[in-house]
Protein backbone atom coordinates (compact mmCIF):
# COMPACT_ATOMS: atom_id res chain seq x y z
CA UNK A 1 0.00 0.00 0.00
CA UNK A 2 1.28 3.44 -0.89
CA UNK A 3 1.75 6.12 1.74
CA UNK A 4 -0.85 8.43 0.28
CA UNK A 5 -4.17 7.95 -1.42
CA UNK A 6 -6.40 9.93 -3.72
CA UNK A 7 -9.54 11.14 -2.03
CA UNK A 8 -12.42 12.58 -4.00
CA UNK A 9 -15.26 14.26 -2.18
CA UNK A 10 -18.19 16.42 -3.14
CA UNK A 11 -18.16 19.28 -0.68
CA UNK A 12 -21.09 21.68 -0.72
CA UNK A 13 -21.87 20.53 -4.26
CA UNK A 14 -18.35 21.03 -5.60
CA UNK A 15 -15.95 18.23 -6.51
CA UNK A 16 -12.70 18.27 -4.58
CA UNK A 17 -9.79 15.89 -4.63
CA UNK A 18 -6.51 15.54 -2.81
CA UNK A 19 -3.74 13.05 -2.35
CA UNK A 20 -3.47 12.50 1.40
CA UNK A 21 -2.09 10.25 4.09
CA UNK A 22 -4.71 7.74 5.25
CA UNK A 23 -4.28 8.98 8.82
CA UNK A 24 -5.52 12.43 7.82
CA UNK A 25 -8.96 13.12 9.22
CA UNK A 26 -11.81 14.53 7.19
CA UNK A 27 -11.48 17.74 9.25
CA UNK A 28 -7.79 18.05 8.32
CA UNK A 29 -8.47 17.44 4.64
CA UNK A 30 -11.33 19.97 4.54
CA UNK A 31 -9.17 22.61 6.22
CA UNK A 32 -5.68 21.97 4.84
CA UNK A 33 -6.30 20.51 1.42
CA UNK A 34 -9.57 22.14 0.41
CA UNK A 35 -9.04 25.44 2.25
CA UNK A 36 -12.45 25.15 3.89
CA UNK A 37 -11.45 26.42 7.31
CA UNK A 38 -15.00 27.03 8.49
CA UNK A 39 -14.99 23.55 10.03
CA UNK A 40 -13.29 24.02 13.38
CA UNK A 41 -11.23 21.47 15.24
CA UNK A 42 -11.49 21.66 19.01
CA UNK A 43 -10.74 18.58 21.06
CA UNK A 44 -9.88 16.35 18.08
CA UNK A 45 -11.14 13.24 19.82
CA UNK A 46 -14.87 13.45 19.41
CA UNK A 47 -15.98 15.18 22.58
CA UNK A 48 -16.65 18.82 21.69
CA UNK A 49 -18.60 18.64 18.41
CA UNK A 50 -16.99 21.75 16.88
CA UNK A 51 -15.94 19.77 13.79
CA UNK A 52 -19.43 18.41 13.03
CA UNK A 53 -20.21 18.22 9.29
CA UNK A 54 -22.80 16.32 7.29
CA UNK A 55 -21.62 13.12 5.60
CA UNK A 56 -24.24 12.04 3.06
CA UNK A 57 -26.76 14.10 5.00
CA UNK A 58 -25.90 12.68 8.43
CA UNK A 59 -24.21 14.73 11.13
CA UNK A 60 -20.79 13.30 12.00
CA UNK A 61 -17.56 14.28 13.72
CA UNK A 62 -15.09 15.10 10.96
CA UNK A 63 -12.24 14.60 13.48
CA UNK A 64 -13.31 10.98 14.08
CA UNK A 65 -13.46 10.04 10.43
CA UNK A 66 -10.46 9.52 8.21
CA UNK A 67 -11.02 11.12 4.82
CA UNK A 68 -10.19 7.82 3.11
CA UNK A 69 -13.16 6.18 4.85
CA UNK A 70 -15.65 8.45 3.14
CA UNK A 71 -14.21 8.58 -0.40
CA UNK A 72 -16.92 9.51 -2.87
CA UNK A 73 -19.25 10.89 -0.21
CA UNK A 74 -21.18 14.14 -0.21
CA UNK A 75 -19.98 16.43 2.53
CA UNK A 76 -21.71 19.57 3.68
CA UNK A 77 -19.85 22.12 5.77
CA UNK A 78 -20.69 25.49 7.28
CA UNK A 79 -19.54 27.12 4.02
CA UNK A 80 -22.49 25.44 2.29
CA UNK A 81 -25.20 27.16 4.32
CA UNK A 82 -25.21 30.72 3.01
CA UNK A 83 -26.48 31.40 -0.47
CA UNK A 84 -24.08 33.74 -2.23
CA UNK A 85 -23.61 36.53 0.28
CA UNK A 86 -26.83 35.99 2.12
CA UNK A 87 -27.01 34.08 5.39
CA UNK A 88 -29.58 31.31 5.36
CA UNK A 89 -32.62 31.55 7.69
CA UNK A 90 -30.93 29.48 10.41
CA UNK A 91 -27.82 31.65 10.36
CA UNK A 92 -29.94 34.81 10.45
CA UNK A 93 -31.92 33.49 13.41
CA UNK A 94 -28.71 32.61 15.25
CA UNK A 95 -27.40 36.11 14.71
CA UNK A 96 -30.70 37.66 15.82
CA UNK A 97 -30.73 35.52 18.98
CA UNK A 98 -27.08 36.13 19.86
CA UNK A 99 -26.67 32.38 19.45
CA UNK A 100 -22.91 32.65 19.52
CA UNK A 101 -20.25 34.76 21.13
CA UNK A 102 -16.69 33.74 20.27
CA UNK A 103 -18.01 31.65 17.38
CA UNK A 104 -15.61 28.74 17.72
CA UNK A 105 -18.31 26.13 18.32
CA UNK A 106 -20.81 27.73 15.93
CA UNK A 107 -20.03 25.76 12.75
CA UNK A 108 -20.52 22.47 14.60
CA UNK A 109 -23.75 23.65 16.18
CA UNK A 110 -25.15 24.91 12.88
CA UNK A 111 -24.37 21.68 11.06
CA UNK A 112 -25.91 19.59 13.84
CA UNK A 113 -29.00 21.82 13.77
CA UNK A 114 -29.14 21.59 9.98
CA UNK A 115 -29.23 17.78 10.26
CA UNK A 116 -31.95 18.03 12.90
CA UNK A 117 -34.12 20.36 10.84
CA UNK A 118 -33.76 18.18 7.75
CA UNK A 119 -35.44 15.39 9.70
CA UNK A 120 -37.76 17.42 11.87
CA UNK A 121 -38.59 20.96 10.69
CA UNK A 122 -40.23 21.97 13.99
CA UNK A 123 -38.40 20.24 16.85
CA UNK A 124 -39.60 20.84 20.38
CA UNK A 125 -37.27 22.42 22.91
CA UNK A 126 -36.39 19.04 24.51
CA UNK A 127 -35.72 17.61 21.04
CA UNK A 128 -33.44 20.55 20.26
CA UNK A 129 -31.55 20.11 23.52
CA UNK A 130 -31.20 16.36 22.93
CA UNK A 131 -29.89 16.90 19.41
CA UNK A 132 -27.38 19.53 20.57
CA UNK A 133 -26.24 17.63 23.65
CA UNK A 134 -23.07 16.52 21.87
CA UNK A 135 -21.92 20.05 21.08
CA UNK A 136 -20.01 22.06 23.64
CA UNK A 137 -20.25 25.86 23.89
CA UNK A 138 -18.22 27.66 26.54
CA UNK A 139 -19.71 31.14 26.03
CA UNK A 140 -23.46 31.24 25.63
CA UNK A 141 -24.85 28.91 28.25
CA UNK A 142 -26.85 27.36 25.38
CA UNK A 143 -30.06 29.32 26.06
CA UNK A 144 -29.52 31.68 23.15
CA UNK A 145 -28.61 28.79 20.84
CA UNK A 146 -31.85 26.98 21.65
CA UNK A 147 -33.68 30.31 21.22
CA UNK A 148 -32.08 30.66 17.79
CA UNK A 149 -33.35 27.27 16.67
CA UNK A 150 -36.86 28.10 17.90
CA UNK A 151 -36.73 31.43 16.06
CA UNK A 152 -35.46 29.78 12.89
CA UNK A 153 -38.32 27.30 12.97
CA UNK A 154 -41.00 29.91 13.59
CA UNK A 155 -41.78 28.69 17.10
CA UNK A 156 -42.48 30.81 20.17
CA UNK A 157 -39.50 31.55 22.40
CA UNK A 158 -38.71 29.61 25.58
CA UNK A 159 -41.12 30.63 28.34
CA UNK A 160 -38.41 31.71 30.74
CA UNK A 161 -35.23 32.26 28.79
CA UNK A 162 -33.44 34.38 31.38
CA UNK A 163 -29.99 32.82 31.55
Amino acid at each position, binding site marked *: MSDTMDVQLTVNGTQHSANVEPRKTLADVLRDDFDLTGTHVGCEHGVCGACTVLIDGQA*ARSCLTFAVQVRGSEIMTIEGLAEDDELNPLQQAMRASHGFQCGFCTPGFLM*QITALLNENPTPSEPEIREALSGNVCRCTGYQSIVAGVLLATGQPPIADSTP
Partner: protein
Amino acid sequence: MLGERASRSGSRYDSARTRAVFSRSLGDQLKSPRFTYVAPTSVEEALTALAEHGDDAKLLAGGQSLVPLLALRLASPSALIDLSGVPGLDYIRREDGHIAIGAMTRERAVERSDVVRELVPLLSVAMPLIGHLAIRNRGTVGGSAAHADPSAEIPAVAIALDAEVVVSSSARGERTITSDDFFQGFFTTSLEPDEALLELRFPVVRPGTGVAFEEATRRHGDFAMVGAAAAVRTENAHIVEARIVVIGVSDTPARRHEAELALAGAGLTGGSFEEAAALAADSLTPPSDLHGTSAYRKHLVRVLVRRALESAARHSQEGG
Protein backbone atom coordinates in the same frame (compact mmCIF):
# COMPACT_ATOMS: atom_id res chain seq x y z
CA MET B 1 5.59 30.72 16.95
CA LEU B 2 3.05 30.95 14.18
CA GLY B 3 1.62 34.08 15.72
CA GLU B 4 5.07 35.69 15.86
CA ARG B 5 5.67 35.11 12.20
CA ALA B 6 2.33 36.51 11.21
CA SER B 7 2.75 39.65 13.25
CA ARG B 8 6.32 40.26 12.13
CA SER B 9 5.27 40.19 8.49
CA GLY B 10 3.61 43.55 9.13
CA SER B 11 0.56 42.87 7.01
CA ARG B 12 -2.76 42.01 8.63
CA TYR B 13 -2.94 38.49 7.38
CA ASP B 14 -0.84 37.09 4.61
CA SER B 15 -2.97 34.08 3.83
CA ALA B 16 -0.68 32.33 1.36
CA ARG B 17 2.24 32.61 3.70
CA THR B 18 0.23 31.60 6.75
CA ARG B 19 -1.12 28.64 4.90
CA ALA B 20 2.38 27.55 3.96
CA VAL B 21 3.46 27.73 7.59
CA PHE B 22 0.36 25.87 8.73
CA SER B 23 0.50 23.09 6.21
CA ARG B 24 4.21 22.54 6.81
CA SER B 25 3.65 22.16 10.52
CA LEU B 26 0.47 20.11 10.23
CA GLY B 27 1.95 17.80 7.63
CA ASP B 28 4.31 16.45 10.24
CA GLN B 29 1.93 16.72 13.14
CA LEU B 30 -1.22 14.77 12.47
CA LYS B 31 -2.96 13.42 15.51
CA SER B 32 -2.96 9.78 14.52
CA PRO B 33 0.20 7.68 14.34
CA ARG B 34 1.12 6.30 10.92
CA PHE B 35 -0.43 3.03 9.80
CA THR B 36 -0.68 0.96 6.68
CA TYR B 37 -4.15 1.43 5.25
CA VAL B 38 -5.91 -1.52 3.67
CA ALA B 39 -9.28 -1.12 1.96
CA PRO B 40 -10.73 -4.57 1.22
CA THR B 41 -13.86 -4.85 -0.93
CA SER B 42 -15.14 -8.17 0.41
CA VAL B 43 -15.26 -10.07 3.69
CA GLU B 44 -12.80 -12.63 2.26
CA GLU B 45 -10.30 -9.89 1.39
CA ALA B 46 -10.70 -8.37 4.84
CA LEU B 47 -10.05 -11.71 6.55
CA THR B 48 -7.02 -12.40 4.35
CA ALA B 49 -5.60 -8.98 5.15
CA LEU B 50 -6.22 -9.55 8.84
CA ALA B 51 -4.39 -12.89 8.70
CA GLU B 52 -1.48 -11.31 6.83
CA HIS B 53 -1.03 -8.34 9.13
CA GLY B 54 -1.63 -10.34 12.27
CA ASP B 55 -1.69 -9.12 15.81
CA ASP B 56 -0.74 -5.53 15.02
CA ALA B 57 -3.63 -4.95 12.65
CA LYS B 58 -6.97 -3.47 13.66
CA LEU B 59 -10.25 -3.54 11.82
CA LEU B 60 -11.71 -0.07 11.32
CA ALA B 61 -15.51 -0.05 11.45
CA GLY B 62 -17.18 3.27 12.35
CA GLY B 63 -14.05 4.49 14.13
CA GLN B 64 -15.90 6.24 16.94
CA SER B 65 -13.84 4.45 19.61
CA LEU B 66 -10.72 3.54 17.66
CA VAL B 67 -10.01 6.96 16.11
CA PRO B 68 -10.00 8.71 19.53
CA LEU B 69 -7.56 6.06 20.76
CA LEU B 70 -5.34 6.83 17.78
CA ALA B 71 -5.71 10.59 18.28
CA LEU B 72 -4.62 10.22 21.89
CA ARG B 73 -1.92 7.76 20.77
CA LEU B 74 -3.20 5.15 23.17
CA ALA B 75 -3.23 2.72 20.26
CA SER B 76 -0.80 2.48 17.35
CA PRO B 77 -1.70 -0.46 15.15
CA SER B 78 0.68 -1.10 12.25
CA ALA B 79 -2.23 -1.59 9.88
CA LEU B 80 -5.86 -0.50 9.72
CA ILE B 81 -8.19 -2.63 7.65
CA ASP B 82 -11.12 -0.40 6.74
CA LEU B 83 -14.48 -2.14 6.47
CA SER B 84 -16.19 0.93 4.89
CA GLY B 85 -15.96 -0.60 1.42
CA VAL B 86 -17.00 -4.13 2.38
CA PRO B 87 -20.57 -4.79 1.27
CA GLY B 88 -22.98 -7.14 3.01
CA LEU B 89 -22.27 -6.29 6.66
CA ASP B 90 -25.00 -3.68 7.12
CA TYR B 91 -28.35 -5.34 7.82
CA ILE B 92 -31.03 -6.06 10.39
CA ARG B 93 -32.75 -9.36 9.61
CA ARG B 94 -35.36 -11.49 11.30
CA GLU B 95 -34.18 -15.08 11.30
CA ASP B 96 -35.18 -18.21 13.14
CA GLY B 97 -35.86 -17.06 16.70
CA HIS B 98 -33.42 -14.17 16.58
CA ILE B 99 -32.65 -10.83 15.00
CA ALA B 100 -29.35 -10.85 13.12
CA ILE B 101 -27.52 -7.55 12.95
CA GLY B 102 -24.53 -7.12 10.63
CA ALA B 103 -21.31 -5.84 12.16
CA MET B 104 -21.27 -2.63 10.11
CA THR B 105 -24.84 -1.64 10.94
CA ARG B 106 -24.78 1.90 12.34
CA GLU B 107 -26.07 2.38 15.85
CA ARG B 108 -28.44 5.03 14.58
CA ALA B 109 -30.01 2.51 12.19
CA VAL B 110 -30.66 0.13 15.08
CA GLU B 111 -32.11 3.00 17.11
CA ARG B 112 -34.57 3.75 14.31
CA SER B 113 -35.44 0.17 13.46
CA ASP B 114 -39.07 -0.82 14.04
CA VAL B 115 -38.09 -4.49 13.92
CA VAL B 116 -35.61 -4.00 16.76
CA ARG B 117 -38.07 -1.90 18.76
CA GLU B 118 -40.65 -4.65 18.52
CA LEU B 119 -38.51 -7.77 18.80
CA VAL B 120 -35.38 -6.74 20.76
CA PRO B 121 -36.74 -3.85 22.83
CA LEU B 122 -33.86 -3.84 25.33
CA LEU B 123 -31.43 -3.09 22.50
CA SER B 124 -33.76 -0.38 21.25
CA VAL B 125 -33.93 1.45 24.59
CA ALA B 126 -30.15 1.16 25.02
CA MET B 127 -29.34 2.90 21.75
CA PRO B 128 -30.12 6.53 22.69
CA LEU B 129 -27.77 6.14 25.67
CA ILE B 130 -24.74 5.64 23.41
CA GLY B 131 -22.72 8.86 23.05
CA HIS B 132 -24.48 11.47 20.95
CA LEU B 133 -26.40 11.55 17.67
CA ALA B 134 -23.35 12.32 15.55
CA ILE B 135 -21.48 9.43 17.19
CA ARG B 136 -24.32 6.97 16.59
CA ASN B 137 -24.54 8.03 12.95
CA ARG B 138 -21.06 6.57 12.42
CA GLY B 139 -20.60 4.08 15.26
CA THR B 140 -21.40 0.45 14.49
CA VAL B 141 -22.85 -2.44 16.46
CA GLY B 142 -19.94 -4.73 15.58
CA GLY B 143 -17.37 -2.08 16.41
CA SER B 144 -18.84 -1.47 19.85
CA ALA B 145 -19.01 -5.20 20.62
CA ALA B 146 -15.45 -5.87 19.45
CA HIS B 147 -14.13 -2.84 21.34
CA ALA B 148 -15.63 -4.32 24.54
CA ASP B 149 -15.61 -1.19 26.65
CA PRO B 150 -16.88 -2.35 30.06
CA SER B 151 -19.12 0.73 30.28
CA ALA B 152 -20.67 0.29 26.82
CA GLU B 153 -24.34 -0.49 26.32
CA ILE B 154 -24.28 -2.98 23.44
CA PRO B 155 -22.14 -5.55 25.30
CA ALA B 156 -24.46 -5.17 28.30
CA VAL B 157 -27.52 -5.92 26.20
CA ALA B 158 -25.78 -8.84 24.52
CA ILE B 159 -24.96 -10.39 27.89
CA ALA B 160 -28.41 -9.70 29.32
CA LEU B 161 -30.13 -11.44 26.41
CA ASP B 162 -27.60 -14.24 25.79
CA ALA B 163 -26.91 -12.90 22.32
CA GLU B 164 -24.54 -14.82 20.08
CA VAL B 165 -21.54 -13.41 18.26
CA VAL B 166 -20.63 -14.73 14.82
CA VAL B 167 -16.94 -14.39 13.96
CA SER B 168 -14.85 -15.62 11.07
CA SER B 169 -11.25 -16.14 9.98
CA SER B 170 -9.76 -17.09 6.63
CA ALA B 171 -8.00 -20.11 8.14
CA ARG B 172 -10.80 -21.64 10.18
CA GLY B 173 -14.03 -20.20 8.83
CA GLU B 174 -16.98 -19.17 10.95
CA ARG B 175 -17.77 -19.89 14.57
CA THR B 176 -20.47 -18.71 16.93
CA ILE B 177 -19.62 -17.57 20.45
CA THR B 178 -21.95 -16.91 23.35
CA SER B 179 -21.79 -13.39 24.77
CA ASP B 180 -20.61 -14.81 28.09
CA ASP B 181 -17.58 -16.32 26.38
CA PHE B 182 -17.06 -13.42 23.99
CA PHE B 183 -16.63 -10.60 26.53
CA GLN B 184 -13.59 -11.64 28.54
CA GLY B 185 -12.34 -8.52 30.26
CA PHE B 186 -11.38 -4.88 30.07
CA PHE B 187 -11.41 -4.13 26.30
CA THR B 188 -10.78 -7.84 25.78
CA THR B 189 -12.78 -10.37 23.78
CA SER B 190 -12.23 -13.96 22.72
CA LEU B 191 -11.59 -12.86 19.12
CA GLU B 192 -8.37 -14.40 17.80
CA PRO B 193 -5.99 -11.97 16.06
CA ASP B 194 -7.08 -13.23 12.64
CA GLU B 195 -10.80 -13.20 13.40
CA ALA B 196 -13.40 -10.59 12.50
CA LEU B 197 -16.78 -10.10 14.12
CA LEU B 198 -19.41 -10.39 11.39
CA GLU B 199 -22.78 -10.50 13.12
CA LEU B 200 -24.64 -10.33 16.41
CA ARG B 201 -27.73 -12.45 17.04
CA PHE B 202 -30.22 -11.22 19.60
CA PRO B 203 -33.00 -13.62 20.66
CA VAL B 204 -36.49 -12.39 19.89
CA VAL B 205 -38.23 -11.14 23.02
CA ARG B 206 -40.88 -13.38 24.59
CA PRO B 207 -44.42 -12.06 25.08
CA GLY B 208 -45.07 -10.39 28.43
CA THR B 209 -41.56 -8.98 28.71
CA GLY B 210 -40.81 -5.41 29.74
CA VAL B 211 -37.38 -3.77 29.53
CA ALA B 212 -35.51 -0.77 30.87
CA PHE B 213 -31.98 0.64 30.81
CA GLU B 214 -31.11 3.14 33.55
CA GLU B 215 -27.87 5.11 33.75
CA ALA B 216 -26.23 7.67 35.98
CA THR B 217 -23.97 10.00 34.02
CA ARG B 218 -22.20 13.21 34.98
CA ARG B 219 -23.25 14.85 31.72
CA HIS B 220 -25.74 13.86 29.04
CA GLY B 221 -24.12 11.39 26.66
CA ASP B 222 -21.11 10.62 28.84
CA PHE B 223 -20.14 7.08 29.64
CA ALA B 224 -22.24 5.93 32.55
CA MET B 225 -20.71 5.85 36.01
CA VAL B 226 -23.10 2.96 36.52
CA GLY B 227 -25.81 1.57 34.29
CA ALA B 228 -28.41 -1.15 34.80
CA ALA B 229 -30.22 -3.11 32.11
CA ALA B 230 -33.27 -5.15 33.04
CA ALA B 231 -35.74 -7.40 31.25
CA VAL B 232 -38.67 -8.75 33.26
CA ARG B 233 -41.18 -11.29 31.99
CA THR B 234 -44.42 -11.50 33.90
CA GLU B 235 -47.50 -13.72 33.87
CA ASN B 236 -50.58 -13.17 36.04
CA ALA B 237 -48.86 -10.43 38.00
CA HIS B 238 -45.90 -12.65 38.87
CA ILE B 239 -42.36 -12.59 37.61
CA VAL B 240 -41.49 -15.58 35.49
CA GLU B 241 -38.00 -14.53 34.53
CA ALA B 242 -35.72 -11.55 35.09
CA ARG B 243 -32.44 -10.51 33.47
CA ILE B 244 -30.19 -7.99 35.13
CA VAL B 245 -26.85 -6.63 33.87
CA VAL B 246 -24.85 -3.84 35.47
CA ILE B 247 -22.12 -1.76 33.76
CA GLY B 248 -19.41 0.50 35.14
CA VAL B 249 -18.61 -1.80 38.04
CA SER B 250 -16.19 -4.40 36.69
CA ASP B 251 -14.08 -5.52 33.72
CA THR B 252 -17.09 -6.72 31.78
CA PRO B 253 -20.81 -6.06 32.01
CA ALA B 254 -21.89 -7.95 35.15
CA ARG B 255 -24.85 -10.30 34.90
CA ARG B 256 -26.56 -10.54 38.31
CA HIS B 257 -27.68 -14.17 38.42
CA GLU B 258 -28.39 -14.27 42.14
CA ALA B 259 -30.75 -11.33 41.95
CA GLU B 260 -32.43 -12.80 38.87
CA LEU B 261 -33.10 -16.09 40.67
CA ALA B 262 -34.47 -14.28 43.71
CA LEU B 263 -37.06 -12.62 41.49
CA ALA B 264 -38.32 -15.77 39.76
CA GLY B 265 -41.85 -16.41 41.02
CA ALA B 266 -42.00 -13.20 43.04
CA GLY B 267 -44.97 -10.87 42.98
CA LEU B 268 -44.86 -7.36 41.62
CA THR B 269 -45.58 -5.65 44.90
CA GLY B 270 -43.84 -5.77 48.25
CA GLY B 271 -40.09 -5.50 48.54
CA SER B 272 -38.97 -7.95 45.87
CA PHE B 273 -37.34 -5.33 43.63
CA GLU B 274 -35.62 -3.64 46.54
CA GLU B 275 -34.30 -7.01 47.76
CA ALA B 276 -33.12 -8.03 44.29
CA ALA B 277 -31.38 -4.68 43.87
CA ALA B 278 -29.58 -5.15 47.17
CA LEU B 279 -28.52 -8.65 46.10
CA ALA B 280 -27.28 -7.25 42.78
CA ALA B 281 -25.07 -4.75 44.62
CA ASP B 282 -23.88 -6.96 47.48
CA SER B 283 -21.24 -9.07 45.80
CA LEU B 284 -19.79 -6.21 43.73
CA THR B 285 -16.64 -4.25 44.49
CA PRO B 286 -16.76 -1.44 41.94
CA PRO B 287 -13.63 0.58 41.17
CA SER B 288 -13.08 4.07 42.58
CA ASP B 289 -12.02 6.83 40.26
CA LEU B 290 -12.38 10.54 39.54
CA HIS B 291 -16.06 10.11 38.75
CA GLY B 292 -17.13 8.24 41.85
CA THR B 293 -15.96 6.15 44.77
CA SER B 294 -16.54 2.44 45.03
CA ALA B 295 -19.16 2.97 47.75
CA TYR B 296 -21.00 5.54 45.64
CA ARG B 297 -21.06 3.22 42.64
CA LYS B 298 -22.37 0.43 44.81
CA HIS B 299 -25.14 2.71 46.00
CA LEU B 300 -25.92 3.58 42.37
CA VAL B 301 -26.16 -0.12 41.50
CA ARG B 302 -28.82 -0.60 44.14
CA VAL B 303 -30.81 2.45 43.08
CA LEU B 304 -30.54 1.92 39.32
CA VAL B 305 -31.25 -1.83 39.42
CA ARG B 306 -34.37 -1.18 41.48
CA ARG B 307 -35.54 1.55 39.10
CA ALA B 308 -34.80 -0.58 36.03
CA LEU B 309 -36.68 -3.56 37.48
CA GLU B 310 -39.69 -1.48 38.47
CA SER B 311 -39.82 0.19 35.09
CA ALA B 312 -39.36 -3.11 33.19
CA ALA B 313 -42.09 -4.79 35.27
CA ARG B 314 -44.43 -1.88 34.61
CA HIS B 315 -43.82 -2.13 30.87
CA SER B 316 -44.40 -5.89 30.94
CA GLN B 317 -47.84 -5.21 32.42
CA GLU B 318 -48.57 -2.70 29.69
CA GLY B 319 -48.04 -5.41 27.11
CA GLY B 320 -44.35 -4.97 26.33
